[in-house]
């Protein structure tokens, strides 16, 4: 396989010195950088996740304020970004007012918004309130679209769950995915959006998707597949052949690293002024070489 068909994923994190991560063909490299690099030409978009509007406890009693701060960061860094994606848990309790607040806060970015549901978005009425606002009429929460030469696939892995299990796509959605991908050229860059990670980050906490492998089987023939997830409120990444997995920070509150606490949290005890360092957004851009995407994570402070 040529270099141009390999997946490249970069991740920068600001927390004191910035670190640029580059993962090419499964080999990670890192280097310190002083400032954000100038955005190169090419299609780009921005990911936010887990805004949890309605959550109002330590460590964050004002989640609208941190979403507003995230959107200010989006405005400052959007450049030529083509769209904004939200990888779920827009709300905390699926209340219409929470959805409306989130929509209102995201609107000033002036970017077309695409979202997938998190488990907190589908607590009432089978997720109808969420789907009506955020999934462009896709009443089951999964859909696809094309932009900037990239085929986007938005999946719902939070509603067909089984007792004792993790996230789940379900047979109907997998059949739809098979049809959606059929006939597409293997050189088409694919971006998959789903709330729960599509690889098993930590099974005891349910941080994975039970039937993800069935989806990955359908995706492996493509030269560049980038999976963007949320749910675990921290940046994690993995590269497996041409499949790159990336989870985003929350704009609301952090959760502990897998297995490092009695439960998934949230982490509640942060020194004053430190919360912004663990919240943030991600920008994704297509590199000059075809088929390559770069993901850049940015903390709120």
């Amino acid at each position, binding site marked *: 396989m040529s270099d141009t068909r390999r997946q490249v994923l970069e991740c920068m994190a600001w927390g004191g010195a910035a670190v640029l991560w580059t993962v090419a063909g499964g080999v990670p490299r890192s280097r310190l950088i002083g400032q954000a690099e100038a955005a190169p030409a090419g299609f780009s978009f921005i990911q936010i996740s887990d805004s949890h509007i309605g959550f109002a406890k330590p460590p964050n009693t004002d989640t609208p304020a941190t979403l507003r701060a995230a959107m200010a960061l989006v405005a400052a860094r959007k450049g030529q970004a083509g769209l904004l994606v939200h990888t779920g848990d827009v709300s*905390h*309790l*699926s209340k219409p007012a929470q959805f409306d607040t989130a929509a209102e806060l995201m609107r000033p970015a002036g970017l077309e918004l695409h979202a997938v549901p998190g488990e907190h978005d589908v*607590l009432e009425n089978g997720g109808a309130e969420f789907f009506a606002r955020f999934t462009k009429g896709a009443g089951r929460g999964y859909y696809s679209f094309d932009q900037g030469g990239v085929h986007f696939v938005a999946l719902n892995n939070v509603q067909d769950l089984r*007792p*004792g*299990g993790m996230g789940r796509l379900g047979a109907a959605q997998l059949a739809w995915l098979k049809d959606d991908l059929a006939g597409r050229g293997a050189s088409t860059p694919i971006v998959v959006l789903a709330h729960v990670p599509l690889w098993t980050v930590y099974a005891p906490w*349910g941080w994975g998707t039970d039937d993800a492998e069935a989806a990955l089987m359908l995706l492996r023939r493509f030269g560049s597949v980038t999976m963007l997830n949320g749910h675990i409120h921290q940046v994690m990444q993995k590269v497996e052949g041409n499949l790159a997995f990336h989870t985003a920070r929350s704009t609301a509150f952090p959760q502990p690293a897998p297995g490092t606490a009695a439960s998934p949290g949230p982490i509640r005890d942060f020194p004053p002024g430190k919360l912004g360092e663990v919240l943030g957004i991600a920008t994704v851009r297509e590199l000059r070489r075809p088929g390559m995407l770069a993901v850049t994570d940015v903390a709120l402070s």
Partner: protein
Amino acid sequence: MLAALALPGLAPPDPVPIRIQNYMFGGGRVEIAAGQRVLWTNDDPIVHKIVADGAAPAFQSPGLDQDDSFAFTFAQPGTYRYHCTLHPKMQGMVVVRAEP
């Protein structure tokens, strides 16, 4: 296991409490008598939603934020397994015995 069977001369607690802490249902398996109520209270700073297993759940709570409670009266004897719809690794069981 939390046992709440009626004992002679000792009225059973009603409702039977189950605390939700650290993404676990306290007691795991709870045994009660038919007609008793169970009261779940969420102590976690994250939402949980309780639903009985199966295609036609016998009971289902709304989303429970921290300190919210949900009660259900078990009229019929049987074994009721349930889980959290947000965190399906969380599982519990209520065993309802016929009244003595």
